[in-house]
């Protein structure tokens, strides 16, 4: 008889080993599928790597995708640590971008550092506002934050769509439904060819690492995540910590939206995120809520996305291939989690003595 028992302590080496094993198995499984479709898997994998790292331009494109993904993951991660299931990063991203655009259109002429600072502030406020709605509904009515944040994603995206097709439509665009470009002042400067967001991202990841490792606040979040009752008992001001954390979470996602609007699109559109907010939920989880790992996982994911785009142009393979690949890899990692958290114990079926009660076994 086989029994499944929860592992009491997770050794880091075993965890890492299982994950690498899972990814390898996923790549092998995907390769079999590709072979069935008469595609050469080695060539496809090679092209994905070449397409994401093969030249300075491609590398920059990969980093450009990793920046919002990492910041979104940081934002989602802080809420997840508290077991506040914020899957509304997509919506907070859009609202942040909206906030940034408000500032960019209101003060197009003021000096660049001032305007950029205003945009960041505004994006943070709007993102935080958007995440406070589900937090408020949770505290007040105990409404499930997973569902409310999910619904608000679409409301936010439709709001941007409304602006794009309605009041903010650029009359100079020959009837094309788009929002006007920002002025040069509202665009983030570049450092080493990539917008300055990458520096912010690395700093933020490090700050969050410190918060969770060294500060009282980070500890309170973790305690609250483990048990609300314990948090109460320990004298933690639960609603306060919850609100501050959720605000930080939404604010960061909003900031990611600001960077994307300012540096990548130089404008606002309903296509701004391209589902990044959802992908970030996955990267957050894959990184096990560890801020430093988020940087790595987000970068690997960006390689897949960028490599997928490259496949389309280089080999005429639909870029959907990268989504399929993403799916297969994460399915395997999700499955492998089980083998990390539980172990199998083989026990000989005990000879049951008839008078022994069930509970005594």
């Amino acid at each position, binding site marked *: 008889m086989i029994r499944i028992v929860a592992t009491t302590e997770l050794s880091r080496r075993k965890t890492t080993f299982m994950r690498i094993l899972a990814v390898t198995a996923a790549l092998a499984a995907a390769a079999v599928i590709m072979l069935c479709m008469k595609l050469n898997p080695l060539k496809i994998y090679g092209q994905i790597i070449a397409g994401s790292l093969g030249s300075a331009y491609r590398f920059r494109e990969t980093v450009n995708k990793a920046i919002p993904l990492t910041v979104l993951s940081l934002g989602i991660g802080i809420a997840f640590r508290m077991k506040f299931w914020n899957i509304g990063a997509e919506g907070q991203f859009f609202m942040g971008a909206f906030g940034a655009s408000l500032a960019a259109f209101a003060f197009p002429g003021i000096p660049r550092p001032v305007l950029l600072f205003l945009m960041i502030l505004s994006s943070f406020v709007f993102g935080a506002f958007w995440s406070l709605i589900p937090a408020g509904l949770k505290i007040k009515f105990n409404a499930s934050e997973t569902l409310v944040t999910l619904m608000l994603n679409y409301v936010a995206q*439709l709001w941007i769509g409304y602006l794009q*097709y309605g009041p903010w439509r650029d009359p100079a665009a020959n009837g094309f439904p788009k929002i006007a470009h920002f002025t040069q002042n509202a665009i983030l400067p570049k450092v080493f060819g990539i917008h300055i967001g990458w520096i912010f991202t690395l700093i933020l990841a490090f700050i969050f690492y410190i918060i969770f490792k060294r500060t009282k606040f980070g500890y309170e979040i973790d305690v609250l995540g483990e048990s609300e009752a314990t948090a109460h008992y320990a004298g933690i001001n639960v609603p306060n910590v919850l609100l501050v954390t959720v605000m930080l979470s939404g604010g960061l996602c909003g900031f990611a939206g600001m960077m994307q609007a300012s540096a990548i699109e130089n404008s606002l559109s309903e296509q701004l995120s391209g589902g990044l907010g959802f992908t970030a939920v996955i990267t957050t989880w894959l990184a096990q809520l560890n801020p430093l790992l988020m940087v790595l996982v987000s970068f690997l994911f960006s390689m897949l996305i960028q490599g997928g785009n490259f496949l389309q142009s280089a080999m005429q393979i639909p870029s959907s291939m990268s*989504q399929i690949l993403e799916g297969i890899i994460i399915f395997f990692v999700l499955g492998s989690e089980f083998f990390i958290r539980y172990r199998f114990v083989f026990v000989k079926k005990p000879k049951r003595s008839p008078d022994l009660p069930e509970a005594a076994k």
Partner: protein
Amino acid sequence: MNYAIQLGLFLQTAVQMGTHILLATSGGIMCEKAGNTNLGIEGMMLIGASVGYWAGYTFCDPVIAVLAAGLAGAAGALIYAVITVTFRGNQVVTGLVLTIFGTGIAGFLGKTISSHFLPATIQNAFAARAIPVLSRIPVLGSAFFTQSVYVYISVLIAVVLYLYLKYTRWGLNLRAVGENPAAADASGINVTLYKYVHILLGGFLAGAGGAYLSLVFVPRWQENITAGAGWIAVAFVIFSTWNPLQAIAASYAFGALKGLAFKCQNLVIFNHKLAISTHLLDMIPYLATIIVLVCITMRKKKENQSPEALGNPYFREER
């Protein structure tokens, strides 16, 4: 009289525009009643829509096409079930990944199938059919009794599921699994089996819902054919408070809203061109769902609540 005809036609379109939502929502309800939140509905719909379309022009048989779509959706659900039930993985993440995966599959298949057309046999099989006598009722006749077989069956499924949940032993067991799997297990219900069967059933219905779009409603292959319908379904599972009968009403209300949005684009009232933004109208289902969610948690009426154990993996050894 003229208004009655127009209203009938409007409602007819509303029903047509809500049918895929109804199928997917019914599927979502089954899955959530088993205690699993599946955010992969959109993905399963896309898989169903693309595979169903492919099977449609390949086999030229309407039944095979729908079955293929349903089974493809169920295959997606099987991945989800293995990970969340057997391996106890995170349901939210698994569902999101399933949606990405399904979008990828549909995008990939879409490159091949978009150059094909559906044969006449399929189009005829799913054409609107008037039910004798009933279809002559003013307004309601054209709205509900002059429809494709697909529409009739979707309503039938919702009604059957309602009866199943409410009046059968299996339905009762299923609800027990969703509310308190440990108690269900102790009373001898095979929790794993119940979860698997209903998650797969949910996938089948989502797949069939997707295929309604590609085989009947459009009926052509379009990139991103579901246009977020799977997320509306996730919302409507809650909006209908896990009740398939209310899902019928919700889906058709959604269809009517879509129709209204279309009509509102160039509405002239008193010589004023009234343009209500479709974007703002599209927000309504999501906002309404949030309101319903708040209301049901406030009122605490027992039968309207979400399944107690929704989202938690069940592990006998950790009881």
